[in-house]
């Protein structure tokens, strides 16, 4: 789909300026569409039926109603009773299960979320202050309303990324934000009370800043945008740490605007990786005698006294072949299916056929991407090529971060926690980008004009089926 260019220089692409107002016309329907689509998910999904929503809400509510930032031990038994009662009324619990409202500390609502930085919750506390005194569900919907706004802004930012990266392809400029908008798992999470919402918005804003930096060089506006987005994301959740690499890479490419030889890049990366590994790691022995990597004493000391990341256990676990078993296969299945076709608390599943279909589509688009890359090699402007590389690197980082979350594996025989795909929704836009690009690479020339329509049709179908599945899960089973 990307247009063939004769130039491989770093000459800036045709800039879209504010003078051409027609460029912004799609926003007249894209923003209402995003708001409506988000509103549908916001209203279809019953209260408390998103990942950790009760405790995420509790954190924001405590900020709105206490005079200080809540500590991990702060709680409000009356709020907990009210939320648990609402959860009961909206069929959150299994049939016959009734929360104990009489406990002095109030019923348990789930995992304590006060381990996260408070930035998102401070924002979510604003609508809660305005809706204070209303029914608890109304307060929840008010907090979800903030997420809805961030969802719409994310779609607008995705549209802007598309207009920056492919300024001469109006079809692709609309297809990419529409695909993101129609992705059911993304829309579902982005209308929940969850700090992932702010991180995901920041990730797309950061990608926009990075794309502008790569295209135009080190300019103040994109630099401020990217820095602000990264800072906000880091202040929201630690899953945003992987965005630092993207930011640094974009800065590097904004600064070095001439082509670099591939072997120099590969050599430098390998050299840095080797130097880091040799300075911090050494060979060791596992309890069963197998060889694995451990961290050097100086790093262990630094970790114990300052980092407190339990690095040694992590490195041992990640490099132990004996302990891994089928864990990566499970990670792949859980991560992939929850990324595309499972939502709610991960319990609302479209079905195996949808999981297989998405796997086939992703695999085909991967092939299409290779074809597209082969055809378009040395024909794209450097900045455009780098943007695509940035997306690829972002997805790779996302996959690695999932592996990172998996370790250290428990040694006492208990089942490890398999992270779900929502932790890498920060990489949803790059993923959508590459799927759209790969799809176009897959199709023969005469089918290419219909390509975006076909892909959007598949996504729309997936979206509508997801509604059906959600309705059947939430309203045909639990209705009294």
């Amino acid at each position, binding site marked *: 789909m990307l247009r063939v260019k004769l130039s491989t220089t770093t000459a800036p692409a045709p800039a879209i300026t504010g003078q051409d107002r027609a460029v912004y016309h799609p926003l007249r329907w894209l923003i209402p569409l995003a708001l409506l689509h988000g509103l549908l998910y916001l209203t279809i999904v019953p209260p408390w039926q998103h990942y950790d929503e009760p405790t995420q809400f509790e954190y924001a509510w405590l900020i709105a109603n206490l005079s200080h930032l809540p500590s991990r031990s702060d709680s409000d038994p009356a709020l907990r009773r009210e939320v648990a009662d609402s959860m009961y009324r909206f069929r959150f619990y299994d049939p016959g299960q009734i929360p104990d409202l009489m406990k002095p500390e109030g019923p348990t609502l789930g995992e304590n979320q006060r381990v996260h930085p408070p930035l998102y919750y401070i924002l979510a506390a604003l609508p809660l202050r305005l809706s204070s005194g*209303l029914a608890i569900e109304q307060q929840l919907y008010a907090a979800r309303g903030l997420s809805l706004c961030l969802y719409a802004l994310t779609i607008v930012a995705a549209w802007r990324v598309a207009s920056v990266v492919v300024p001469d392809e109006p079809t692709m400029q609309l297809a990419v934000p529409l695909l993101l908008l129609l992705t059911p798992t993304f829309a579902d999470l982005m209308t929940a009370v969850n700090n992932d919402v702010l991180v995901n918005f920041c990730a797309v804003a950061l990608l926009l800043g990075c794309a502008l930096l790569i295209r135009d060089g080190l300019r103040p506006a994109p630099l401020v945008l990217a820095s602000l987005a990264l800072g906000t994301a880091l202040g929201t959740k630690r899953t945003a740490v992987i965005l630092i690499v993207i930011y640094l890479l974009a800065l590097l490419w904004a600064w070095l605007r001439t082509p670099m030889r591939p072997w120099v890049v590969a050599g430098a990366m390998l050299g840095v990786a080797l130097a880091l590994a040799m300075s911090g790691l050494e060979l060791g022995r596992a309890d069963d005698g197998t060889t694995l990597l451990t961290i050097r004493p100086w790093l262990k000391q630094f970790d114990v006294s300052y980092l407190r990341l339990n690095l040694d256990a992590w490195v041992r676990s990640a490099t132990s072949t004996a302990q891994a078993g089928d864990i990566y296969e499970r990670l792949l299945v859980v991560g992939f299916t929850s990324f595309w076709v499972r939502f709610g608390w991960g319990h609302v599943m479209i079905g195996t056929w949808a999981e297989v279909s998405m796997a086939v589509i992703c695999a085909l688009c991967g092939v299409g991407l290779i074809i597209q890359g082969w055809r378009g090699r040395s024909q794209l402007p450097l900045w455009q090529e780098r943007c695509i590389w940035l997306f690829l690197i972002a997805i790779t980082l996302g996959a690695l971060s999932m592996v990172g979350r998996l370790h250290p594996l428990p040694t006492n025989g208990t089942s490890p926690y398999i992270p779900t795909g929502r932790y890498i929704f920060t990489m949803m836009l790059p993923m959508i980008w590459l799927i759209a690009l790969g799809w176009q690479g897959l199709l023969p020339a005469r089918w290419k004009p219909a390509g975006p329509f076909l892909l959007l049709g598949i996504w729309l179908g997936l979206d509508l089926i997801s509604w059906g599945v959600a309705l059947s899960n939430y309203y045909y089973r639990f209705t009294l």
Partner: protein
Amino acid sequence: MTDVSAAHATRTYIRWALALLGALLLIALSQITTLEQEQADPSLNDLEITLGGIRSIEQTFTTTRPGLVGLGVRIRPGDSGDAAISIPVHLRYADGPPIDLVSATIVVGSAEDGVVSIRFPPLIASRDPYLITGTLRLSLDIPAISPNTGPKITLRKNSGAQGGMSIDGTQQPDVDLAITTLYQIRWADRIWPISAMAAGKPGLLGQPAFYVLLAYLYMLLIVEGALALRRAQTADPGGP
């Protein structure tokens, strides 16, 4: 030039008017409800008992569909003085928390065709056979009446799976109270469970028509998006 722009404006107005008309039509259609009564015809095997000396009658029953809006019992005055007797009635979950879903009073003399009814807002009953709250309990608190006097209430041979009856806490395994159930059926629920979606939600979200309108507007904008994509493709230098 003026004619062209006037024609364009007219087309725009017509499009808006059609869209508005569609919205109004859908809202109107989503409001259509019908009442369906489930009532066994009077039978020769029906029994009548006098309420005198009884303190309470309880009957459990399973709702057969969502939208229960009314209940009736066959009751008639024993003599002319019974018509003014009021009987408090409660409807609760059979196995759920002791909270009244409905609390009302029936007056014996208000019977129509021998049935005294109460009406209440729709209870969206469960379709899930594993959900215990699909079964409800109807309780009648009988006022103090001398034994073997007072209004007569109809009982029916036990039909088996529909629940159980007790008089003053004593199970009556062979008979059930002859109750009539009234369901409100929303036409649009057959396509989209809007009544269930709105049930228990606050404000605008509690209005079934809201969901219809939302989906309609979404579909309109999807069409607008598809048209915009088509226009963009035509404008695309690489397009067809």
